[in-house]
Every structure is written in C-alpha cells, then in structure tokens.
C-alpha cells in the first residue's frame, strides 16, 4: 500500500515538473528569445550607433508623438472606463447589454478599419469635416484631424478604450452592491462611497487596466498607420520602426531594432513599476496599516 502511494506521489511530481518545464519552454521560445534577439540585434553595430540611431530627428519626433497619444488616450480611457463600469454594474436600464457589447468593439474590429472609419468621418469626404471647417472658420483656428496629431490621438483612444472597463467590470460584479448599500444607509454620499468603499476594491484592476491600456497605446500600429502619413511629423514609434525597417539598408534595420528595443524596455519598466507598487501596498496592508 505504502509503495503504491509513493509511486503515485512520484508520478504526480513528475507530471508537475513536466508541465512546469513545458510552460517555461513555451514562454522562452515564444517570448523571451524573440525579445532578447531584438535587444541583441539593436546592439549589433555598437553602443555608439545604438544611441545615434535613437537620437535622429525622426525618432525623437516619433517618441514625442507616441508620448502625447499615449498620455491622452490613457487619461481619457481611464475616466471613460471608470464611468462605463460604474454605469454597467450599478444601474439597471434598457440597452445595458448593448452598451457593454459596444465597448468591446475595438477588440473585435481590425485597427485598420478603425483608422479608415476615422478618415471617412473626419476626412475631406466625411460628414464631420464640415463641422470642423465651420469651427475653424469661426475661431480662426486650423484644426486638422486626419493625417495630423489629433487623428493619431483619436485612433489610439479608439483601440484602447475597452481595457480599463474590461478589468473593472468583473471585479465590481463579484463585489456586488452590498457594501455600498451599507455605506449609504450609514449616511455616506456617492463620492464618499466611491472613495472609501468602491475604490479599494477596484484599485488593482484599475492599475492593471491602465497598464494594459498604456502598453497597447504605445504599440498601436494599424489604426494609426491609416491616419498618419508624415514621417517626422505624425509618425509614432511603431510607424517609425516600420519605416526604418522597410527602407532596407543594413544600417537602418539595426536602427529599427534599436527603436524597437526602446519599446521593449518601456514595457519592461512599466511591469516592474507595477510589481513594486503592488508589493509595497500589499506588505503595507499585511502590517494592518
């Protein structure tokens, strides 16, 4: 009997190690190796070349555009995501299911189509271009949407808008309304309830949603590609990488890798920040304040 148990325990152990091994192998081949090769390739022509490749006018301009688009998109979508999740989980109304399905559209639509949709809306032929024109003539401004920074920002907002609410809605659903109702009976108003009761529940989901949103905004290619045509003006980092790579010379391919490595490093940095942040708050909570 005991021998049998031992045998069983050993085979369970073996299964465990095989599964762990497989996952590690998979992650190594699919993720670590390709990313590492980006870094390695970027350094092929030396550190000097690496920094030179990163400091061309095109790259710095792309960096600025990416930064602007990301910051605005994340800010807008955080607010939108919070409001939408709140509405979806706290109120009962007709069309609630439709709304929550609509929020998912950017997940299911190809970003290129999103970009084209904006061209059809705000471009020369679009129905909204007249409105923009009349605003421009009234205010004496020269606002351009398509093939300009606002278009890039809009496209980035579009493709990233489900992330925050997708993280928060499930949390709010499992938490339920009980605690909030208890707080309101004790006299707490809406904002107080959000700050003291709801927010602690969704804090990590929100941070995670923001991180996913940021990562996606930094890396968006398709939608932005449709709306952005000026290298050194409206190009974002991914578009700049594409342009460098497509120009075909060995030097520019190395430069493409250098710029890519920048995106990889930013992504890694974001994840590290998140983990440090999470670890700190957790250990603080464990001490009981």
């Amino acid at each position: 009997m005991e021998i049998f148990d031992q045998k069983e325990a050993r085979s369970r152990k073996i299964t465990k190690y095989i599964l762990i091994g497989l996952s590690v192998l998979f992650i190594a081949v699919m993720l670590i190796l390709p990313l590492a090769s980006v870094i390695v390739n970027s350094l092929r022509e030396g550190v000097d070349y690496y920094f030179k490749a990163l400091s061309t006018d095109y790259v710095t301009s792309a960096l600025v555009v990416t930064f602007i688009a990301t910051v605005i998109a994340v800010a807008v979508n955080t607010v939108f995501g919070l409001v939408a999740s709140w509405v979806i989980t706290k109120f009962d109304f007709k069309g609630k299911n439709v709304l929550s399905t609509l929020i998912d559209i950017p997940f299911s639509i190809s970003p290129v189509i999103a970009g084209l949709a904006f061209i059809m809306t705000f471009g020369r032929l679009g129905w909204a271009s007249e409105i923009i024109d009349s605003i421009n003539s009234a205010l004496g401004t020269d606002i351009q949407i398509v093939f300009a920074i606002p278009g890039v920002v809009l496209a980035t907002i579009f493709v990233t808008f489900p992330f925050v609410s997708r993280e928060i809605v499930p949390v709010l659903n499992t938490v339920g309304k009980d605690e909030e109702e208890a707080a309101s009976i004790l006299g707490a108003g809406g904002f107080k309830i959000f700050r003291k009761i709801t927010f602690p529940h969704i804090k990590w989901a929100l941070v995670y949603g923001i991180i996913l949103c940021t990562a996606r905004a930094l890396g968006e290619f398709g939608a932005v590609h449709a709306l952005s045509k000026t290298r050194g003006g409206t190009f974002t980092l991914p578009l700049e990488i594409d342009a460098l790579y497509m120009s075909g010379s060995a030097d520019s391919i190395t430069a493409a890798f250098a710029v890519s490595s920048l995106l990889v490093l930013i992504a890694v940095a974001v994840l590290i920040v998140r983990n440090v942040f999470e670890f700190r708050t957790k250990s603080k909570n464990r001490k009981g304040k």
Partner: protein
Amino acid sequence: MYVELKHINKNYGNFQASKDVSFGIEQGKLVALLGPSGSGKTTILRMIAGLEHPNSGEILIDGKVVNDIPATKRGIGFVFQSYALFRYMTVFDNVAFGLEIQKVPKDEIKKRVLELIELVGLKGMEKRYPNQLSGGQRQRVAFARALAPNPSILLLDEPFAAIDAKVRQELRSWLKNMIEKLGVTSIFVTHDQDEAIEVADEIIITNKGRVEQKGTPIEVYQNPKTAFTASFFGQPSELVDYKQFNTFKDLKNVDKVFVRPEFVKVTKKSEQQFYKTSAVEGVIEQIFFRGNTLELVVRVGDNVFTARRGLDEELVEIGEKVDIFLYRIFVTSGDEAHLVQNQSIREESLVI
C-alpha cells in the same frame, strides 16, 4: 404606530413583489417578518430602509411620510444577510464609519466605538479585518456598525442565516437581550418559525407578496386566520382524504384540512384508548428521534401526517398498527381557516 406601511405595492418589472402591504409597528417592539422564500420579506425591509422604492403606497416613520427621503437620511440601522462588512476596513473603522460621516469629533468616535465593540464582546479585535473573523463575530460587527449612529429603527435581514445551529441559539438570545436593553424598534426577517416564536414580540406572516397575518406569537400560533397561515405555521400536515376520519366526514365547505402534530393522539393497541369509537387505525411509517420527543410519520388510508409521542411512553415500531385520534383540525375554505374540534371528545367523555 412608530413604523407604518400603508397599501404598499412594489413591482420588479412585471413581477409584483409586494401586494397591498399594510402594517404598523409600535415603538420599541421587536417584530419578525416570517414567510417562505421569495415571499417579499427582504423587499419590505429594503423599502423601509430606502434602498428600494414602492410603486404606490406610503411608508411612515414616527408619523412622517418618508417615501421621498433617501436611504442616507433615514437614520436607520441595517444588518445585511451577508453582513456586508467593509472588507478593506478594520473592525474599528467599520463600526466608526457611520459616526465619521456624521462628523462626530474623533475622541467621541473612539469612545463610542470601543464601547460598542466591548458590548458585542469583541474587545481586542479592533484591528482585525473582516476576513480574520468567524461568522458569529462578523455578525456582531455588523450589529455594532448598525447601532453606532444610534438609529431609531434597526432592520435585520436573516441575521442568523449564515451561522451554525449552536451559535445561532446563543446569538438569538443575545440579540434579543441587546435590543431590549437599547429599546430600539426592530424588524428582523427570518424563515425559521422557532426563531420567530422565540425572539419576536410580534410576528408578521408574508406569502406571495402579501401580509397574511400579524399578531403575537401565541395569537398567530393558536389562531391562524388564513388558509396559508394554517398550512405554514406549526409543522402542519395536509389530510388529503379527511373523510376517512369518521367524526369529521360531515364537514361542509372544505377546501383543505391540516393537522398539527399536537392535534394527533397515537395510541398503541396494548394501551387504553379513551375514544374507542372515533379512533381509526393507522400505521407508523417513519420514526425520528427529536431529542425530547419521537416524531412519527403516520399513515391512515391515503393520509400521511406527522405526530409525536413522548419518550416516557412505550416505544412504537415502524410498521406497527396503532390507533389514531384527532383532537382537532384546521379547515380552510377559500382564503379563511378555522379550527374544528372533534365532537366525540365531549360525547364520549359523557358516556364514560
């Protein structure tokens, strides 16, 4: 009346969860809302608290209509079935929450909260989080939190449902004492009859969104007024074919007939039978040991019902043939119920 509901109707979409609900509760009373699952008990409680709004009818507290006063302003204490403690706050902060919102000075909050925590027997646990407490302890925190702002009314939704039987018994008497001591008007929801009888000054019986009956536990127990109450209260069994009991076979206007265990006299063949002529033969089908009595399931023809025998009496066996005598029965016709005595009790005692 301190709390009063007048002709309350409440719909959830097409479903009517409260139908013309009216009742009043005197100040300082502890009242039980008793009814089967889905009968609208929680709905009534939530409307009194202001978490739900009636489609028509009025709710009065202390003589004032409160329909338009939001939950935040009603000054009611509410203990949720799931307790709904604030997970990210300590016991202290949970209890202090209501006082902080009222902007009570810090040192007063501290004094009152520690006082309450001691009152509910959780001294020394102020710094714990809800997930570090047992079910009974959480219940006490929920109670302390609801009481902290000195509410004029305390509402409790199945306060003991999530607690095991033994602790429940303790908490029940504890809660009753506590509420008596504080004199706060309280309404608690339960679907446990024993709990309602034991704890409440008055019982309100609900069924399918209606109030069936209201009265002291003894009134409701002895005098079920509606067909539903007769069929629900006091462990009744329905007699599907009451005509098999000779003495009752001439009843008129009968919809249904119910017997409670204490209405049934089970006599062994070897024992002396006082009501020979009107007793009928039955068979013992099941026996449950209930601690201080034996609960018997007896069959007479098509009728299967529950009876009891004391442990001091001679034991019966499954399959044993026994004599069954019914002292009385509840008869319902339409929505009404009334008690019918077995006439032969008088007649035969005259003969003997």
